[in-house]
């Protein structure tokens, strides 16, 4: 255990939580809540043009200014949270669950399964993500499910590579041998023996992947794929209002900040997850 700069909270709960993690959690929670209740929070409907001016400044009524069509930015960001958080979360979950399970399985089973899986996923990995996205959307059009599946498909190989390399080490441990000669099934081996040992790094990896997915989502929207109008994820908001950058229009600054806060805090949270306190005799 290393000494931590921040103080301890909640050691009464038998967990050691640290301040940075708490802040991260607060922000993530904030956006999650926004995402859930966006529909009730927005002052104007997302598509409604409320300002004759465009890239309007912040002022009462339009707290975050107006966008390139003169729509209320606050409403659009609140709704955008729903898409950015929702889609990225769904995608990262699918990607990591699939990737990690496959990775662990490959490490345990070894042999042909391993090499075949590795080859295929390597191949997938070698196709540039944005191009992959482009082709998929060109082929089957852009809807939220498609978007989610595409994003996850793009990040499965990474998760696979990562978890496999971890699992390979665990697999050499004697407790794996013990479990094997007990006659345990593959599911038990990866679920109950390996996973608990790699969950930490896997989560950390998930955090970074989340950032990349959020960014890729905005990248794809740069290439004109994404949520259906009038709705837009944050990346799309930044994109469509990029013209406001020269004037420092809130329409482009705010969504950028929103993205940053979300991604940064997710990582802070994961880097500082609460740890179970082993020392039982703690006060």
């Amino acid at each position, binding site marked *: 255990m290393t000494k931590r700069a921040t103080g301890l909270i909640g050691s009464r709960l038998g967990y050691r939580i640290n301040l940075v993690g708490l802040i991260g959690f607060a922000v993530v929670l904030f956006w999650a809540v926004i995402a859930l209740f966006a529909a009730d929070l927005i002052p104007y409907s997302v598509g409604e*043009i409320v300002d004759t001016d465009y890239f309007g400044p912040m002022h009462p009524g339009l707290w975050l200014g107006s966008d390139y069509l003169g729509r209320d930015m606050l409403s659009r960001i609140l709704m955008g949270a729903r898409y950015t958080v929702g889609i990225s979360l769904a995608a990262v979950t699918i990607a990591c669950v699939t990737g990690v399970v496959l990775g662990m399985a490959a490490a345990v089973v070894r042999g042909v399964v391993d090499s075949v899986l590795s080859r295929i996923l390597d191949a997938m990995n070698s196709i540039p993500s944005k191009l992959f996205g482009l082709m998929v959307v060109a082929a089957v059009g852009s809807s939220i499910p498609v978007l989610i599946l595409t994003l996850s498909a793009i990040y499965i190989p990474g998760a696979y590579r990562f978890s496999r390399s971890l699992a390979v080490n665990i697999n050499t441990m004697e407790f794996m041998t013990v479990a094997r000669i007990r006659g345990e099934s593959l599911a038990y081996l990866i679920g109950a023996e390996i996973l608990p040992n790699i969950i930490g790094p896997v989560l950390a990896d998930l955090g970074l992947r989340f950032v990349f997915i959020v960014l890729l989502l905005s990248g794809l929207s740069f290439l004109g*794929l994404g949520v259906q109008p009038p709705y837009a994820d944050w990346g799309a908001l930044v994109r469509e209002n990029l013209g406001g950058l*020269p*004037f420092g229009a809130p329409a482009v600054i705010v969504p950028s900040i929103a993205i940053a806060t979300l991604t940064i805090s997710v990582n802070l949270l994961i880097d500082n997850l609460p740890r179970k306190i082993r020392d039982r005799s703690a006060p």
Partner: protein
Amino acid sequence: MSDVITNWNKPDDTMVEDAIRRGASRRELLKMMMAGGASLAAGNIIFNHATAALAATPVKGGALKAAGWSSSTADTLDPAKASLSTDYVRCCSFYNRLSFLNEGGTPQMELASSIDSKDAQTWTVKLRKEVTFHDGKPLTADDVVFSLKRHLDPAVGSKVAKIAAQITGVKAIDKSTVEIALTSPNADLPTILSMHHFMIVADGTTDFSKGNGTGAFTCEKFEPGVRSIGLRNKNYWKSGPNVDSFEFFAISDDNARVNALLSGDIHLAASINPRSMRLVDTQKGFVLSTTTSGNYTNLNMRLDKTPGHNKDFVDGMKYLVNREQIVKSAMRGLGIVANDQPVSPADFFHNPDLKPKPYDPDKAKFLFKKAGLLGQSIPVIASDAATSSIDMAMIIQASGAEIGMKLDVQRVPSDGYWDNYWLKAPIHFGNINPRPTPDILFSLLYASDAPWNESQYKSEKFDKMMLEARGSLDQAKRKELYSALQVMIADEAGTLIPAYLSNVDAITGKLKGLAPNPLGGMMGYAFAEYVWLDA
């Protein structure tokens, strides 16, 4: 910003210039400026300032750099295949046409010294002498015959195959005379021949990557999807061009294009996003050149499919569209409210008495109720492929929402849009480039057998009147007929044309001699030959 009072700025300024070209009277202009909130005095200043921008004396030399907005490996120097503005610009700089349109939209001779006909069905084209191709070969009638006949061969994949179809016979009478026979009389042939696709190439050309034409520039370098560089054609048969070299490429990102201009990397940024104009304003020494040439984005409701087959629905939509707001919000003023028909105010045949339908939600609501479609969710296909169609869609959607009309806007990728959605979906957006004559527009878009009959509009009456107008050489009669046709389209067809888009090219103050042209922005894409760079 020199002479700008209150919220009066370049956009308005360019609007005025544009109006002047369309021959708007001084009274109209002043009215326009009052609306803009400028004082009478200011109005005068702008008026002078605007007109001043149009006259000066050329300067020779300099390397011209300009950026269009779209380019790909499909770029071509084959005029017949030319599909993007990028191709037009290049073709204009390497080739010549038999005729071209001047600012006023009246045909002028280029490679042809004359194009005459008695019955408007058989035409005689006399060619200029002493015109040579870049490779030194002199221009002959055979080249013209070859160039025109190509369009009839499906293997060529000509964009104007349909229009060329009316050309039944092309033959060389002698070295410098060509005879063109048409299926039916068409008074517009000289105008038709001014289309970019009818550029004249050397007889028997198969490899077009060399750009061997008679044009103002010789092709130094052509990399599809990257750039083209042309050098001044030393022995060009016309005077000019003014610049020594001309580099053209495309920057697809709107902001990047404007930034490149502002940073001085290029002299002209074609068709900039209206929202970038504010940025251009903040920087000294840049001019905006606006052209309203009848390019428009329209909402098509197929009359042969639900819900379009219900007249009330179609009419309802026409009243649901807030045309002013589209022009104001979606186009930031760079457009003119249109009246659901394709002939632009810039056109001689435009019908000024046909007023746009007003924004009338209640009437729309009434009609939708009548049609029994109120409250139903109706899919509307939009795409970046059709300029600002997504913004329009969202504006219509919003006003629909207010009267309880659910419009389900579906954005589809621009990749493959024309192939998969345009003309096919029951309700979709289209984008029509300016065509030189009403006849071309009508025969392409509204005749019962039109290849791009966007709303599947069919009317024998219309077809008959169209043919009549085409054949006649009496302008007054034609104007009358075309006006009637415009009314028919506005009231009967399912094509909702909310506004004519203005095209804005941003240029450095150094770039002079850029005059608008009804064939499109960048002086009908032919600017390179005429402009010059002030030292």
